[in-house]
């Protein structure tokens, strides 16, 4: 599956890159980091140019992100409202929304390039909690361009070992996601429940297990 998709990409170039990035950002499981590193390698070999690749990839990803946002806002929100009307819990939803408004900006920006696997989820949740669209798109554009710049540059710099680089980036990303989630869970478990008494312990645990 992966190989067939990559074959399409190497055959059709930038339009295929745009399409693939739209689908990946909208949540389709797709080896987007390998794709970008491969594109970087083709830039190094002189088959493609750097800026068109960055531009096509980033605009594709931005378009795909809007799909997730719209899905959350126009599909998820009415559904959520219907559910809370039936079974209650509106105040919980409001709590979650307040929490999301506070942290979503960071989440949107970093899930574009540093913790990519969370991207599609954050798009939907941003729409769901009605995160201001103009701010969403500003952070989105900044983050996606940063992602493209980093990954395509790495592919260009290490153009003869794209599979190893892509695998390394993929695993590293999951380590960062894992440390974040473990830290959050550890904080909830050990710090919040005992009023900060064992707060340092949770930090230690996540740090040493790393």
């Amino acid at each position, binding site marked *: 599956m992966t*190989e067939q998709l990559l074959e399409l990409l190497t055959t059709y170039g930038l339009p295929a890159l745009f399409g693939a990035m739209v689908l990946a950002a909208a949540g389709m499981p797709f080896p987007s980091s390998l794709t970008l590193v491969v594109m970087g*390698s083709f830039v190094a070999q002189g088959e493609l140019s750097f800026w068109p690749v960055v531009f096509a990839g980033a605009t594709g990803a931005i378009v795909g992100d809007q799909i997730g946002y719209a899905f959350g806002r126009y599909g998820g929100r009415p559904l959520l409202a219907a559910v809370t009307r039936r079974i209650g819990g509106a105040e919980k939803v409001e709590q979650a929304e307040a929490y999301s408004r506070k942290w979503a900006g960071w989440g949107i920006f970093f899930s574009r390039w540093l913790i990519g696997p969370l991207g599609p989820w954050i798009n939907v949740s941003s729409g769901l909690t009605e995160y201001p669209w103009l701010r969403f798109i500003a952070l989105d554009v900044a983050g996606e361009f940063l992602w493209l710049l980093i990954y395509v540059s790495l592919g260009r710099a290490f153009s003869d070992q794209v599979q190893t680089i892509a695998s*390394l980036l993929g*695993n*590293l990303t999951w380590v960062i996601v894992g440390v974040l989630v*473990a830290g959050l*869970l550890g904080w*909830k*478990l050990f710090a919040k429940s005992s009023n900060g008494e064992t707060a340092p312990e949770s930090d230690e645990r996540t740090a040493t297990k790393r």
Partner: protein
Amino acid sequence: MTRTRPWRKVLIALFVAVVAFTGYHAVRTVSDAIYWNAHRDEPIERWMTIGYVAHSYHVPPHILHQALNLQPAPDHRTLGRIARQSGRTMAQVEDKLTYAIVHARPPYPPPGPPPRPLQPAPSPKP
């Protein structure tokens, strides 16, 4: 704390799972870094082009064109497509390329220059 006992157990289980997951990927990151540092050859895949294989294996492209009986002109097709269009399997293409690569490397003498007439247009060479 006492109120949320079962909930806490679920959180602890989740925490352990996430730490294990993170550890697994940390180990793989390190092994990737070692692999990268050792610069070993990457397996040939069907999405690659002849140009990429030559670039990755540090061999001149024309020996790969020769190995597949292709014109020495640049060929942007993927190996998968080359295999389909020439009626070979991907494994056969891979074998031919690997054979050519092995024979272009140190124990063997370095390959000669690419054949001169790159284009159908005749270019007289003294």
